[in-house]
């Protein structure tokens, strides 16, 4: 019986059916569900690794140890994992290994929209790209056979639309796969220069074999139709092409690296006009052009964002939808924002009021950069805040007492520890605020080493953040409640005075993980409210402003009585009522 599944669940199913027994990942939208789901299958060891590099290394070890292994991450995670990945391509596998790269064209939940098909050519590994959930399952299974046949890790590249679209899937029977025997083989697995030179020869040989495979595999297929137009495409773009041009000829690529050169030539010769439809970078186009084939591509299509059927219809022709309704009204935007009761809110409100330079990081708290909190100066990638604070201090020399780094607990464990060591070693003086909400909130509340629970919610040794930062040499360590604004502010003031680095751990559970108090509510005393809107500037949906009455008001359905608005009010107009 067919079932609806998002692409990510289908990948997990495919991996289970292929006999995967080790799965490791660091969460990241749109990849997170793959391993959280796969970990629930019988006989699968699943884990949250502290970051993608570790995940890749655990994966490499599991593969060498003989297990079929899956490693998953979002596109930028592959940058973190790139070091082990590139060289693991040299050693090759023992048990098959698939690395899933979940790209995010359109940046629904990401800080960039890099096209990880590029890794295929750069790191020299095969890249497979499914176009719906059934293919996600089937291609995952197939990827393990390719991996073991060619002795190489395989990248399964997906995009947000595939990861989070549900389509019908027919599940298969799980394969019985034995753990492969491990044989010590230093020239294959120890990448000293002398051995690595030998392995590079193998890598190039392997790629020639993979190119032949690509020319013959069923997952690269020509669908002949009207030959006046031929489109080469892959992934979810294939669906968009078929939606608007059901009758044209299509070369649908399931393997996008290495490309099937012979098949592409055959297709090019069989059509009058050849167009390549690929989101983001002209990865296929540039290679096809380099073979001297006349082809159109990015002169018609943007390098930016996601494509859609209507966009393809507009650029290429085909079935276009009707003109929809145009409403001549200004529609205010609705950006995402911190939840009512979010412990991050008080921190950014305070940082802004203290006029500090804030080197930010990635997580729910990045929303603190948006109006009205406006509490962040820079944010680049996970873990960057601490090193950037150090760099800014060294650049500006004077008055480092105005520079802080803010970083979430999961992000700190991911990649905040080494830059903290840099600050100690090279004698920086910044104040680091670890926003410890005891979860990885942004990606949907995954556990991590400092929560004391595994991916299956089983108890695990809990990483002690205070002891950790002390151990790297931070002498000034304190824990504050981020919803107690006075306490937070005086902690910041004191630590910023010091000519030494400090860590303030702002600790309180994510508001979505605790039940709001039932015996407490916030009320506004209208005769005390002056309409100054200070409370509105904390950007909380629990409180709003009534212009006509020049009064603030509590929204009882969203307010969780965190009391931040009451602490912000200088006229004592917001009261806590018990019972």
């Amino acid at each position, binding site marked *: 019986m067919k079932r609806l599944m998002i692409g990510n669940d289908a990948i997990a199913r495919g991996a289970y059916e292929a006999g995967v027994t080790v799965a490791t990942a660091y969460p990241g939208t749109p990849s997170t569900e793959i391993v959280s789901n796969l970990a629930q299958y019988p006989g699968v060891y699943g884990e949250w690794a502290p970051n993608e590099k570790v995940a890749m290394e655990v994966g490499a070890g599991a593969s060498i140890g003989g297990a079929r292994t899956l490693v998953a991450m979002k596109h930028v995670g592959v940058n973190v994992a790139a070091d082990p990945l590139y060289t693991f391509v040299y050693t090759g596998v023992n048990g098959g290994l698939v690395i899933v790269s979940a790209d995010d064209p359109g940046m629904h939940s990401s800080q960039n929209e890099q096209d990880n098909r590029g890794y295929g050519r750069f790191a020299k590994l095969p890249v497979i790209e499914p176009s719906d959930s059934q293919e996600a399952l089937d291609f995952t299974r197939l990827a393990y056979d390719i991996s073991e046949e060619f002795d190489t890790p395989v990248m399964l590249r997906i995009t947000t639309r595939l990861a989070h679209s549900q*389509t019908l899937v027919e599940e298969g029977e799980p394969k019985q796969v034995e753990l492969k025997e491990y044989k010590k083989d230093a020239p294959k697995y120890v990448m000293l220069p002398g051995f690595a030179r030998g392995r590079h020869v193998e890598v190039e040989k392997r790629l020639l074999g993979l190119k032949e495979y690509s020319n013959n595999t069923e997952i690269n297929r020509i669908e002949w139709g009207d030959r006046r137009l031929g489109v080469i495409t892959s992934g979810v773009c294939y669906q968009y092409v078929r939606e608007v041009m059901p009758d044209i000829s299509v070369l649908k690529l399931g393997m996008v690296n290495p490309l099937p050169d012979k098949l592409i030539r055959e297709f090019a010769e069989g059509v009058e006009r050849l167009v390549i439809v690929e989101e983001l970078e002209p990865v296929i186009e540039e290679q096809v052009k380099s073979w001297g084939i006349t082809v159109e591509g990015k002169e018609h299509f943007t390098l930016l964002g996601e494509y859609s059927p209507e966009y393809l219809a507009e650029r290429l022709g085909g*079935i276009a939808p009707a003109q929809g*309704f145009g*409403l001549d009204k200004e*529609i*205010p*935007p609705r950006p*995402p924002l911190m939840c009512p009761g979010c412990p991050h809110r008080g921190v950014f409100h305070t940082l802004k009021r203290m006029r500090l330079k804030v080197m930010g990081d990635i997580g729910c708290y990045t929303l603190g950069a948006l109006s009205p909190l406006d509490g962040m100066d820079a944010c680049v990638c996970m873990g960057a805040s601490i090193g950037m604070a150090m760099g800014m201090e060294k650049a500006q020399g004077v008055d480092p007492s105005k520079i802080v780094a803010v970083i979430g607990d999961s992000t700190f464990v991911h990649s905040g520890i080494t830059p903290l060591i840099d600050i100690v070693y090279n004698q920086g003086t910044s104040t680091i605020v670890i926003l410890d909400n005891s979860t990885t909130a942004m990606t*949907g509340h995954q556990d991590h080493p400092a929560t004391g629970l595994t991916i299956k919610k089983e108890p695990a040794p809990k990483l002690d953040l205070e002891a950790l930062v002390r151990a790297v040499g931070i002498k000034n360590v304190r824990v504050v409640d981020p919803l107690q604004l006075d306490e937070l502010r005086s902690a910041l003031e004191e630590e910023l005075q010091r000519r030494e680095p400090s860590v303030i751990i702002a600790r309180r559970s994510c508001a979505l993980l605790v039940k709001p108090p039932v015996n407490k509510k916030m009320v506004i005393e209208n005769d005390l409210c002056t309409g100054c809107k200070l409370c509105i500037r904390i950007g909380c949906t629990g409180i709003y402003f009534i212009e006509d009455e020049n009064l603030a008001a509590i929204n009882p359905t969203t307010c969780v009585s965190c009391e931040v608005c009451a602490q912000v009010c200088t006229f004592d107009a917001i009261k806590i009522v018990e019972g």
Partner: protein
Amino acid sequence: MAGKAMNILIVGVGGQGTLLTSRILAQVAVDLGYDVKVSEIHGMAQRGGSVVSQVRYGEKIYSPIISKGDADIILAFEKLEAARWLDYLKPDGMIIINDDRVDPLPVMSGKVKYPEDIDQHIAQMVEKTLVVDASSIAVGCGNVRAANVVMVGILAGAMGFPEGEVEKAIQAMVPPKALDINLKAFKEGHNLYSNIA
């Protein structure tokens, strides 16, 4: 656009249950024997941003996303979101709007005004507009969060979905402790449609 696909766009504010709603509707379509595709939003936007889920079903569905001007039905859990996504509706499409207002940040902070009578404007343009107070009905059923399932009831009425099929899908998708409230919410929505249709 290919063949006779039915396109349903579900729009709202992150946290209002668009995801669950699209999963219920999609399951009904699967049980009725259609090819089905659903596109969801996870991640950042779920934190109170503008969110959309898309359900398409028919003989054969290619794209998981709906084009502008191609939605047969828009189910809007909030008025401003109804307006934001209105250009996705087909000229003869139907929009069902929950008479609920959730101020986005620029409105809360007084930077811009929430467009007045936005649902009335839509009703003037779109012949098949239905504005219902699903939130109040949901409160009556025991939890305002079941407003999305009240809307499912209305939609099921409009589409002529067999009631039993929808109830089955709700049973499969909703956690047991919230089931009674949700089944009640569905019934109320369904009755409401029968009364106005």
